[in-house]
Structure formats: structure tokens, C-alpha cells
């Protein structure tokens, strides 16, 4: 039999009962399309979380006071807002740790910010000029705080675009205007560029001022709530983290590193953790979709077994006029492969469509990878072989005499 003959026979057999063929195929279509859609949604989620983490800075090591490292219940957890980091700690890091790109000292608090007739509650970050490089903050309008502002504790602030919109809803130019925070009057010297609302917090809803100003007028002490260290490159991030940790342990006279009164967080670690979380979710979604694929495969097997029984006489006849076992085996195997393969193609198109719709509705920006399409095709072909094998063998092994007598 030529390929052409086999395809002719297969087409005839599959179109003989279109409703049944369609319903059986539906199982595979749903399975394949959900695998494609789920994997693409998972990949999209992973990419969006990763980019939102990357947008907070590059090669960042974040030092915060308190031992947030131990998540278990215990007295240390209460020290989340502990005051253990000082400006001197930060300067020591800057002076002694190798491979540091830039470093920012932050004093963060929530404050009510009042403009003319409007007010908003936002995160006030007292920081150094280097913050703009460490945290990828760019100024749209005006300028960022500079060294002289820090040195003189100037009452100047830079606001985020969301904050600007909240405070000046009429579209007034914010730069040069004055706002009141905690009974002090501050002059706006700049507005930052939008970073886009990303995931956990809105980076555009922010207000920056020199850290010295924040210490003098808002917190009233010499402590820092965060030190952002930007390593020179991705390779040195771990080294910087290790060196910062040992330096601070030494400065704080702590010998047991598990009792540290600060914690360091590596941006790469955050990305890795988030990736592993979203990766797990993707696997979970794909596994659920995979189960539906399996169910679809069983549907194929069920239909093929029914077909073999229905066509027992036909199989007997084919054998009587000279078909070999292998001819019958091939014919039924090709039938089930065609069934799953066609279902697979439709499934890929449908899955692609679903992920396109999800993207265009703005829910999440999905990406259909070629590998997931190939995987889906491969899986559907394998399902055709696996679930078609037993029915095909059964057909091939029918005794032609019994098959011809079959009523």
C-alpha cells in the first residue's frame, strides 16, 4: 500500500462518522489547546514578574535592619523596624567592600503630603543622589536631589508621576510648587519618569528627598531603614552580598551570623525565587492541562476500539484478499495518529488564539513559544501511537475466518 492509499483509506474511515470523529478529536483539541494556553500564560506571568523585579534596579543588594531572614515565629521577627543600620555602616560599606557600583542610603516612611487643596498618602524616601542610578529612577522634569541638597539637608523633594497627578489633578506644573509634609514646607524640584505600575507596588507613587532632610525633619534620628548597594556587575553580586554581610557583622560585633540584626537580600535571589514560584505554577497549570490531554487520549483509544469492533468484517475481508497483519496494523495506527494530529493542529491554533485573546485583553502578556507548540505536536502524535497501538494490534490479530463470520 502506498502512502496515498493509506491516507485515502484513513480519510474515508474518519469521515464515515463525522460526529463521533469530531467529538473524539475535541478531547485532544481541548487538551492540546489548554497545554499551549497554560504554558504561554505561565511564561507571560514569569516574564512580567521578572521584568518588574528587574525594574527596581540592577545587580542590587538590599540591606535592611532586623532579622527578616528567620520567618518562624520568635522575638526577632518583632524587630522588622529595628534601628540598627547607621549612615556610618553605609559609609563603611562604600569604603571597604570591593566591586560596588553605587550605593544609596534610604530612610523610608509613609507620610501625608499636602498641596494646595489636595493631599495624598505616599512613601517618602529620604535618599542620596545615587538612588537614581541604583534604582533606575529617571527624572522627567526638573532635576533629582544632588550632593549639596544632602549636605545642607535642603527641604527639596522629587515626586513620582502618580503622586504628581494626585497632588496636581488640574495638570499644573509641579516643579517649583510647594508641599507640606509633617508641618514642614518643601519645594518640588523634579518629577520622575513613569516606571509603569509593576506587580507588588506602584513605583510611580513616591516622593524623594535628601536622607539627611528625612532624618532631621521626619524620623529625628541617625538610622537608615535601607541601604541599597548596586554591584559592579551580575557576577560580583554574590561577592558584594557576602562582603557586606561580614563587614556589618564585624561592625555590629556579632559573631553568630544567625543572630544578625540586619539582613541582606540579593536581587538575583528575588528573581530566582519569583521564577521558581511562577515556574511551579506553570507546571501545575500544564499538569492539569496534561491530564485533560490524557483523558482525550483515552477517548481516542475508546473510539478506535469501537471502530475495530464495528469493522471486524471489513478487517476479515481485507485479510482474505491479501492484507497482511502489518497492513491492518498500519492502517488503524495511522487512523488514530491522523485523529490526534488533526486534533493537535486545531488545538495549537485554538491555544494560540486563547493566549492571543488573554494578551489583547491586557490580562497578562503571553508568549507562545515554538518549543511548546512542538511539544504539543509531539505529545499528540505520541498519544496517537500509544492509544492507537492496542486497538490496531487487536485489529491486526483478528483471525480472518472469525472476522468474516462476525455478525
Amino acid at each position, binding site marked *: *500500500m*502506498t502512502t496515498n*492509499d493509506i491516507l485515502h483509506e484513513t480519510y*474515508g474511515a474518519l469521515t*464515515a462518522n463525522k460526529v463521533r470523529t469530531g467529538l473524539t478529536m475535541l478531547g485532544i483539541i481541548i487538551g492540546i489547546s489548554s497545554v499551549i494556553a497554560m504554558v504561554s500564560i505561565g511564561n507571560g506571568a514569569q516574564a512580567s514578574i521578572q521584568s518588574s523585579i528587574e525594574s527596581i534596579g540592577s545587580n542590587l543588594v538590599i540591606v535592611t535592619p532586623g532579622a527578616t531572614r528567620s520567618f518562624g515565629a520568635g522575638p526577632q521577627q518583632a524587630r522588622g523596624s529595628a534601628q540598627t543600620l547607621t549612615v556610618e555602616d553605609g559609609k563603611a560599606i562604600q569604603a571597604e567592600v570591593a566591586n560596588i557600583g553605587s550605593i544609596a542610603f534610604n530612610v523610608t516612611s509613609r507620610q501625608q503630603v499636602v498641596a494646595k487643596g489636595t493631599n495624598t498618602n505616599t512613601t517618602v524616601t529620604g535618599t542620596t543622589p545615587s538612588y537614581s542610578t541604583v534604582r533606575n529612577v529617571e527624572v522627567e522634569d526638573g532635576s533629582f536631589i544632588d550632593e549639596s541638597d544632602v549636605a545642607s539637608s535642603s527641604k527639596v523633594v522629587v515626586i513620582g508621576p502618580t503622586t504628581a497627578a494626585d497632588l496636581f489633578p488640574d495638570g499644573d506644573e509641579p516643579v517649583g510648587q510647594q508641599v507640606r509634609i509633617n508641618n514642614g514646607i518643601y519645594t518640588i524640584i523634579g518629577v520622575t519618569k513613569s516606571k509603569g505600575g509593576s506587580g507588588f507596588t506602584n513605583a510611580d507613587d513616591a516622593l524623594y528627598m535628601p536622607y539627611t532632610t528625612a532624618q532631621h525633619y521626619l524620623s529625628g534620628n541617625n538610622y537608615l531603614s535601607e541601604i541599597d548597594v548596586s554591584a559592579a556587575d551580575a557576577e560580583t553580586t554574590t561577592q558584594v552580598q557576602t562582603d557586606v554581610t561580614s563587614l556589618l557583622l564585624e561592625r555590629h560585633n556579632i559573631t553568630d551570623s544567625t543572630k544578625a540584626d540586619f539582613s541582606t537580600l540579593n536581587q538575583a535571589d528575588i528573581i530566582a525565587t519569583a521564577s521558581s514560584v511562577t515556574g511551579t505554577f506553570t507546571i501545575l497549570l500544564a499538569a492539569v492541562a496534561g491530564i485533560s490531554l490524557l483523558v482525550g487520549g483515552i477517548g481516542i483509544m475508546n473510539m478506535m476500539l469501537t471502530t475495530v469492533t464495528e469493522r471486524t*468484517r*471489513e478487517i*476479515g*475481508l*481485507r*485479510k*482474505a*484478499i*491479501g*492484507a*497482511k*497483519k502489518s*497492513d491492518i496494523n498500519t492502517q488503524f495506527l495511522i487512523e488514530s495518529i491522523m485523529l490526534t494530529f488533526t486534533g493537535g493542529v486545531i488545538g495549537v491554533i485554538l491555544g494560540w488564539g486563547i493566549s492571543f485573546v488573554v494578551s489583547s485583553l491586557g490580562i497578562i502578556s503571553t508568549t507562545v513559544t515554538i518549543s511548546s507548540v512542538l511539544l504539543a505536536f509531539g505529545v499528540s502524535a505520541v498519544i496517537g501511537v500509544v492509544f492507537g497501538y492496542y486497538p490496531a494490534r487487536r485489529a491486526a490479530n483478528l483471525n*480472518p*475466518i472469525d472476522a*468474516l463470520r462476525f455478525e
Partner: protein
Amino acid sequence: MIEVSNITKTYDSGENSFQALKGVTFTIEDGEFIAIMGPSGSGKSTLMHILGCLDTPTSGTYFLDGKDVSTMTDNEQADIRRDNIGFVFQSFNLLPRTTVLRNVMLPLIYANEEPEKRETEARKALLAAGLDEKYFAHKSNQLSGGQIQRVAIARALVNNPTMILADEPTGNLDSRTGEIVLGTFQRLNETLGRTVVLITHEPEVAEHADRIIVIRDGVVVSDAKTHTKRKADHK
């Protein structure tokens, strides 16, 4: 030429075994029209399966065109069925929803013939079986019983077999259509020199052949040309 020598067939089903054929011997020359007749349970179906290479005998030998086919494997038997035997069944066994032409081409498809040759051979066989050309593109389920059996005969004829083996070919037909079918066999035998082996339980049907082998309880009880041959009335 068909040489069957002392063939037995025993069916084993657990403790009780049943001997369907108890030593059958006969020879069929090329170009003969022969009927194998016997009541149900006589072993004629078993004999037909062995003659048709659908089954192997328990003992004895069966030479088809000089080849011993009694000890062949499944695949070798399939080749013999494809190249040397043309089957006509009581229940026609055409593929439904398939055109007449393609039904007849089926043995040639399994024989890997060229598509052009398949079609010319199939047309030739259909015309020889007496089916009008206007039915060639019809689906097999759009035909009448007599037409269907002619298609089946054409299918049996298409591979130029050593013998046409017809198992109760008139069993599902009314007597008039039956006559037409038997007339077709007679014509194929007389004008084209085809060897036809007709399996039946009806003496009137058997009498259309030149020679009748009567089988009963697994043995040949008579093998003769003593009857008056009936001429099929199919015009």
C-alpha cells in the same frame, strides 16, 4: 492446479477435541468448474478455509500451483490469498461508502500495483463480471444484491487468481439473481477458462458445475461428473 492429499483438521477446545476433516483427498485441474457440496456440519466450511489459505490443516498436504501452502506462515498465506485466490462470499463483503471501482481495486492496492494498472484491471474485471460501466462510480451500498455480487466476483477476478473460491455465493440472493450469478461463473469458466470452486449445500446450485464433490462428516463420499449440468438461465 490444486492437489489436496489426506487432509485432516482437528479443533481443540480444552478436553473435547472435534475432528472436522478426516482425511480428504482430491485434485482440481486448471479450468475446472467444481462444486463442493455438503450439509452444514459436514466440514465443507473448514475445507473451504483451508483451500482459501485462511487456515492450515492439522495434517496432510495441500499444493497450490506446485507450492506446499499447508505449512505456510500467516504472512506467506496472505501473499497466496492476494496472488492466487479470489474470494466470493455469501454476504458480499464490499467496503461500504466506497466506489465500485475502488472495491475491485482493493486486492491490487495490497499487491502494490501502479494506480493506472489498478484501474484498467478493475474495469476489465468488472466488465467480465457483467456489470455495466455506468455503475463504476457508484458507492457499493447504492447497488442491488445481484449487482453487488457481480462487483464481488470482479474483485475475485481482478488479480488473475489460480482459482475463484465462492462460498455460498447465491445464499443471500433470490433465485433469479442467483441464476445470474451462477451464469456469470459459468461464463467465466467457459469463455475465460477460470477455475471456479463453488461451496454450497444446495444440489440445484451444485449442478451448475461440471464436477461435484460431496462431503459428509469430514470425508469425501462422492466425486463425480455423473449429473446433467444445469445451464444458468440468466438472459
